[in-house]
């Protein structure tokens, strides 16, 4: 069902729309963000001004943006999806030429009031353009090779741009997020089986290319993989992050060391303690109870998204919601796997908790789209 089939009269209008927002989702997002504020306060050694306060301001800004996006009818967003995608590609190109180099990677555009990471924006615009594409495409053609090639190109252009930044984590997220949208849209199982097999081949190629002139990854990326495979071979060097992160996590035990009592993070044993590794501080200070609670909150966010998508018979809306949920899921799944030693360190933040403006803002805008889809879903019949 396309938006053209909407019976517009059944859709709430004006200020009444606020009542039709997915409030449980908003509460869950706020709860997760609040955990983030608490942890940022803790890792700053009991200082608000260092990370927690800017993060709260961004959250406030992000919430406002979310409500605003939610108020705008979903069909508007559908119509601008392709444009948004092109703009984000333009920004990715811009960072290639004018971007700020940080942590050895070109990732930011300095907008003056904030530093924007186009790669974060792209995660959502990619989901939007794919959802719009499959909404436009005749469902009977989704598995036709030509119509499969188009979304593949849509995914691979930004992925290529991100990989040369270089930002391996985001590029993996882009591929996985885009792939999930394609899967949900009904593309044949065969393609996915083939891609997974090909990925296996690629991994083999990546390893065999090492040390040759056509080496596929940067040296530091190889080192990270080595470290992931055996952190103990270099506990004070490259394996340091993972080893210390695991120590922090494990030493939290069942109930944790208590708020502000985490020795690992307090004493700077943890790298990037306020960004990518903030989960370890939570796990150290609040133990299994704290860490598992956060996982449950994330799970509930996914659940409410899935429920919202299932109840939405608009194809664009459903695909968008699944896509945003998938992107969100990939964030925390990769981050948690990374800090628990299940995945290599790839530099993916913990969504809504890690300190960082772009990811927070982009995610809340994405949830604004989810809300808009929820508010403007087809009703009645």
């Amino acid at each position, binding site marked *: 069902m*396309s938006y053209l089939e909407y019976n517009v009269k059944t859709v709430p209008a004006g200020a009444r729309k606020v009542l039709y927002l997915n409030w449980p989702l908003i509460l869950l997002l706020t709860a997760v963000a609040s955990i983030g504020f608490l942890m940022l306060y803790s890792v700053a050694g009991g200082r608000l001004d260092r990370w927690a306060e800017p993060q709260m301001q961004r959250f406030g800004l992000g919430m406002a943006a979310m409500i605003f996006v939610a108020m705008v009818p979903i069909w508007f967003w559908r119509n601008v999806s392709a444009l948004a995608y092109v703009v984000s590609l333009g920004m990715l190109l811009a960072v290639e030429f004018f971007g700020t180099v940080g942590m050895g990677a070109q990732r930011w555009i300095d907008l003056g009031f904030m530093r924007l990471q186009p790669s974060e924006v792209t995660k959502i615009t990619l989901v939007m353009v794919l959802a719009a594409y499959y909404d436009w495409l005749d469902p009977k053609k989704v598995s036709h090779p030509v119509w499969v090639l188009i979304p593949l190109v849509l995914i691979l252009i930004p992925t290529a741009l991100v990989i040369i930044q270089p930002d391996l984590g985001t590029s993996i997220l882009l591929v996985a997020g885009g792939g999930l949208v394609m899967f949900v849209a009904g593309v044949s199982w065969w393609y996915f089986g083939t891609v997974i097999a090909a990925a296996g081949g690629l991994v083999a190629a990546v390893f065999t290319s090492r040390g040759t002139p056509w080496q596929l990854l940067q040296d530091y990326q190889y080192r990270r993989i080595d470290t992931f495979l055996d952190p103990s071979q270099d506990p004070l060097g490259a394996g340091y992050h993972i080893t*210390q992160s695991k120590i922090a996590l494990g030493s939290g035990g069942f109930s944790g060391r208590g708020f502000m009592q985490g020795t*690992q993070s307090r*004493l*700077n*044993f943890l790298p990037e303690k306020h960004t990518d590794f903030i989960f370890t501080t939570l796990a150290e200070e609040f133990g*299994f109870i704290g860490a598992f609670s956060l996982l449950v909150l994330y799970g509930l966010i996914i659940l409410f998204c899935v429920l919202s998508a299932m109840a939405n*018979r608009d*194809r664009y809306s*459903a695909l968008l919601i699944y896509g945003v949920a998938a992107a969100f899921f990939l964030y925390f799944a990769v981050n948690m796997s990374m800090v628990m030693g299940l995945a290599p360190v790839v530099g993916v933040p913990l969504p809504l908790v890690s300190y960082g403006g772009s990811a927070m803002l982009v995610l809340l805008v994405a949830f604004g789209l989810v809300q808009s889809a929820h508010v403007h879903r087809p009703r009645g019949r």
Partner: protein
Amino acid sequence: MRQSPKDIEENARVVTRRGLVVGGLQLAFMGMLGLRMRQMQIEEADEYRLLAEENRVNMRLLAPPRGIIYDRNGVIIADNAQNYRIIIVREDAGDVDDVIAKLQQIVELDEDELERAIREMNRRSPFVPVTLADRLTWEEFSKVAVNSPALPGITPDVGLSRFYPMKADFAHVIGYVGPVSDFDLGRIDDDDPLLQIPKFQIGKIGVENKLEKPLRGKAGNKRIEVNAAGRVMRELGRDEGIPGQDIQLTVDARLQNFVQARMDGESAAAVVIDVTNGDILAIGSAPAYDPNKFVRGISSADYRVLQEDRYVPLRNKSVQGTYPPGSTYKMVTALAALEAGVVGPEETVWCPGYYQLGRRRFHCWKRGGHGHMNLENSLVQSCDTYYYDVSQRVGIDKISAMANKLGMGMRHDIPMSAVAEGLAPTQQWKAVRRGEAWRVGDTLNASIGQGFTLTSPLQLAVYTARMASGLAINPRLIKTLGGVEQGAEPPAPLDIRPAHLRAIRRAMINVSNGQRGTARGSRIVTEGYEMAGKTGTSQVRNITAAERAQGVFRNEDLPWERRDHALFVGYAPHTDPRYAVSVVVEHGGGGSRAAAPIARDILAFAQYGGVPPLDAYPTSQRERIRTMYESMTLADPAPPVPGRSRA
């Protein structure tokens, strides 16, 4: 394009189905994450917690203050002085070279030390403090402190270091401490973690070395929390450890100072013992050296000077040096003979100036001979022939047994380095050690303290004290250790008939007071302060027949190292003995001329408790004595500080 409602429903179902598959996979993945959390935080939590503790807690050793050493009156002999240091922290200093250059304008820095400090600084993390210079004077220290705003990263700091206020006086007694070396670590079997502290001071020699364990104390520690870079964040706990135990010596610092000063210019040793209980009141060896030079590590130039000095200042002659006792040994032979009953006190021996043993002739020091000699005269005039004769009757084994009974040929148990055993030879000793049979001539030589016989000044003093008191006293150097009185059980009486001891003492009184006594020139004239004693002159070479014929054995004509050793043993007051003394002047010539005056002055000082008045001396000597005392510089050891002693 418009779709039929049926298609729309079908497509929505596909999306929902696929969405549920994805949602299910996501849920499964989250379940796995949850299980991983459970595994790490519940099942393996203890292991990780242990690792975290190791990460953050660091132990730092706290060196306990070393025990203080006092003299018998509480005068400090070895102290822990504040050591003013300059410490630099590289990261605070910024431009290190610039800061050091500025510092050099204020205080002089040792080039070697500076180079070492810079090397250490570059090797360590930038926040680790490194000692740039130590042992600053207070003046230098305060200059640095005043200028510290202009010297970023520079901190004036105070630590503890050993200091010997009495300088050379006690060098041979308590020795010195020095920074622990690899050599020390290899030599001593000690797992005390304190030894791992760089430049930790341990006793190298003397009492400092022998009583190292109690003096050192037990290491304390502080547990500090460090961050990943090793920077100290805060102190978690502290265990102060146990300070080293204080030691009080039996030595009297003022007497010791006088003994050292009196021997100045000689290569000599002297020991003063309290005859009633064996307390060592002074135990000197000259020349000495300043132990403070060793505390930090002596320069090779200074060390070479000490090593090449022919008076061997590094040798502790009082316990380590062994000398043929010469005539001071004659009381041993005499007592052995008396106790064996082979000679009576009034029995005489004819001295023609020599003793004929078969075809060999043993000479008395007096070529013309002494004539008829009884026991007392033989000691007073130091007739050799008498002892040649008597020793043959009693035999060497009984003589040496008597020597052992009087404290010679045995190692006394005092905590000083290289305490010598000496030698009171026996027939068996010669058979075992030399593989030769004992000959009668050996006995004759031994009877006058020559030949194989060797004694240390400490043994001579113990011997004299035992004869003077008739008690089997043992020398004691440590009065209290950690406030506990050491080995103060009353001495047992000697197993010698008191009448025989009295006869010997009567003779010794006449040695320094009788008209013909060999030490008459060194008598104390004050009534009740008179001393008794015995001179000795021991040969360090054999007199050849040719020399004897030429009459060349005036010591002054010989090179220093071939002259005779001069010895004297004595005690005072002669009627009620309190102090026993032994003096050995290496290559000093005759005992009556070189050793007896020193012994006399020491005994007089001990009795008067200070520099003796001139009327204690014979009138003819007063002018010379006055000049001597005027030229002597004596330290006045600081009186004991009330409340200072922890003992």
